[in-house]
């Protein structure tokens, strides 16, 4: 890249009136640290990274999980999330559960753990020993869909479909909890999930229609 002539700095980092920007810059360089996106907190030194990574890999643990009715033993690191376990550690992988934010904001990763809807990106797999996990794949198959899944199809509650597995699982959990949820209850129970295409009105319709069909059995 061509080098441009130096431009005036906003303020002199060594000067007496440190701006916040120059303060953070000089603080950063004092710590000999880079500021890389996503690495603000985790900017370990080389030696630390080496050590901790070795530690993590050496610390692979076997966890027994019951996934969609099947007993599975899977080797995970202590920091491996349930989401990553499903998507990356199982063979074959279960990729119906989606990763969107990996931070508990969107609900695309929602699965049932012992019947409760949880964000699988916020659960460490090693803490779920003995738990029963149900993913969207466990609720039905294209040839044998649950009432909720069928209602999502009938009401056009899925467009790009990337949020859909999370919504299907959350709706299933909602109907397991409420036999005949009203509109406000449906919205409340689904409020942990986001859809960018804008399928919400059709999702609410699907939830209501599945509820009337299954009488709240959630399937």
């Amino acid at each position: 890249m061509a080098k441009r002539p130096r431009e005036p700095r906003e303020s002199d980092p060594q000067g007496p009136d440190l701006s916040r920007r120059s303060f953070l810059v000089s603080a950063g360089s004092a710590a000999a640290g880079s500021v890389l996106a996503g690495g603000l907190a985790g900017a370990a030194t080389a030696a630390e990274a080496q050590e901790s990574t070795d530690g993590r890999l050496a610390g692979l643990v076997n966890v027994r999980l019951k996934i969609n009715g099947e007993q599975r033993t899977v080797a995970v690191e202590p920091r491996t999330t349930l989401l990553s376990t499903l998507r990356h550690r199982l063979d074959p992988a279960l990729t119906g559960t989606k990763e969107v934010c990996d931070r508990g904001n969107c609900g695309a990763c929602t699965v049932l753990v012992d019947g409760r809807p949880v964000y699988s990106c916020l659960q460490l797999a090693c803490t779920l020993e003995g738990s029963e996990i149900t993913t969207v794949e466990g609720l039905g198959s294209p040839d044998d869909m649950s009432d909720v899944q069928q209602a999502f199809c009938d009401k056009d509650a899925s467009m790009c479909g990337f949020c859909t597995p999370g919504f299907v699982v959350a709706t299933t959990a909602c109907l397991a909890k409420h036999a005949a949820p009203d509109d406000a209850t449906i919205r409340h129970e689904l409020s942990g999930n986001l859809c960018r295409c804008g399928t919400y009105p059709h999702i609410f319709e699907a939830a209501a229609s599945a509820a009337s069909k299954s009488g709240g059995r959630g399937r």
Partner: protein
Amino acid sequence: MSPTPKWKPRGEMTLLNTGYARLDGPDKVTGRAVYSHDVRLPRQVYARLVLHSYPRAELTSLDLEPARRIPGVVLVEAQKAAGDELVYLGDDSIVAYVAAETPEAAKDAARAVRAAFRDHYPPMVTREQSLSPGAPSITGRGNTSGARDRGDEAAVDSALEGAAVVVEQVYELPIQHHVCLETHGHVVDYDGESATCYASTQAVSGSVDEFARNLGLPADKVRVLTPVMGGGFGAKFGIGLEGAICCLIAKKLLRPVHLMLDRPQEFQMAGNRSGTWVRMRGGIDAQGRLVGQFAEVDRLGGTGGGAFPLMPYIYACETNAARTRSVHTALDSNRAMRAPGHPQASFAQESFLDELAYAAGLDPVEVRKVNVESDVYRRHLDVVADAIGWDAHPNRTAPGEAGADGWAEGIGFGLATWRAGGRPGCEVEVRITPDGAVTSSCAVQDLGTGSRTLVAAIIAEELGLPLSAVTARIGDSDLPPSVGSGGSVTTGALAPALKVAAHRAREALEQRLVPVLGAEVGDYEWVRGRVRVAGEGDMTMSFGEVCALLGNQPLSVRGEYDGSLDADGSLHGAQAARVRVDTLTGRVEVLDMVATHDQGIPLNRLALTSQINGGMIQALSYGLLEERVLDAEMGWLLSDNLESYKIAGPKEMPRLRVILDEDDGRNLATGMAEAPVIPGHSAIANAIFNACGARLRSLPFTPDRVLAALAERA
């Protein structure tokens, strides 16, 4: 044989013009649909980009060794070298990339890359910084570009001398993000001689050349697959630097490479709708007619040009002038986003016209009707005004007041326009085997709009078959080519090619029927899986029996775009919103939104409703919540995940109503992607004013802004 088929009258259609479920629904609702993110191939490695978080910094050193020492890491490469300057926040922030056996090891390696930066120049991430006197030039080419003067500003000012009211105001829109739930990324499987590329793209056919170039392969050795994709909204044309890097790694390793952006990276480098600063000056006469309008527009597209259509937007005003330019900041370029520039122009124009109407004590609906040229708009305004309850609304010419509980309710309006129809570029193959299996194929991608289903539906309609009897194959560059999906062209480009192919397939089958049933080609009726000579009693043969006449030779025909089958000219639309404002806290609740749009033939009423709902919801989200936030001093992106960049969720949903325009006489195909996203936030801003007199001139309409606007009224 008729060379140019025509669409059946709507009333005679049995599948099209009804609402029907999508073909890929069952795969999507059961988690079986495999997106690019979900591709798992033997020996696949996980790649990851390493991004720096300041714009305009100089890289002084880069140490990759710590990353290389991490177990499981197979590749660490520099993208920038010491001495390089990072010019803008975006893909220019990529300093290195890594690949590893597991995503976790790749993450560790990305973290272990040691980079040092110094001499952080002023960040230049806001319009004010870029325009401040003596501001350094971001790219070396000056901080403004594309300046254009149109019309005569002095003539506008003299016209305004005869105006009943004149208003001058500034309207501002922040940068918005696409927020495709599936982030950008690819899996490239390259074996040294050919490659299969799994791409989350809006242009399957259009990506082949780019992959080929980056892999050093001839185009016929590259296959692009996109059976499903998790949203694009305009952000996913081209393979991007992330795609180029994915190709590079694949070439080096000769292993399948899975490279997806994570959410913060997506916000930092994968596209946005340009921000805008608009100053409007103009006036209306006593009847509400615009007598003059001047607009000064700064498009804020980062290092890109930004987007903004011609002013006046939708409304007619003979004496008008506009001064437009791009103001650059040290941010990634804007990309096409659903109706590029239009939602921005809508907000400025619709707010401005509303201000004029109320300033003159006129009904804002009537003022809109006076200033549009097309009767379609007048009709659409009547439809939404009626549905939202405008006539019964107490305050139609002046804003209302809050009740004793502090809440106030109001109604607002906005219009939309887009170009109708498609363009050449789609081809379709229809194949019918003697056992009666029908397959319709096109490389086209389905962004969530329902194009896969359309690929089967138009064939099924023509042959009188149920939708389930036709297999749709899409999302594969080995199939007949397709246009990319942008600017609402997909349906208008694809549907004619499907219709032509369907028509040819039917005529080819009818040729086989001539010796059997005696009637000429074109004189048969295909209904409910059977065929008969037109107008003659019972259905004579089943579709399967007809196909058996093919002997052992499958039938294969192709169709291509035919411009007599898609609409041209303009699309129109009107939307209305009813809101509730808590004048004590500044909170806005949207209660009700209504949309009507002309759409030619409603090819699938259910999918069409979903599209229009989606447009209204994205506009609501833009109006109430969305804003890219940067630290003006450091240049950091602060809104880098969904807890800091909010999009509308279930709790924000109003009642949404879509009223399809049954009076649109065009019996032709057109898409419905851009128009419905254009006016919703403008209607909401106008409804807030109508409710309580708070004029919101900047998005999003957060409680603090509402309270400030209320204080301004007082």
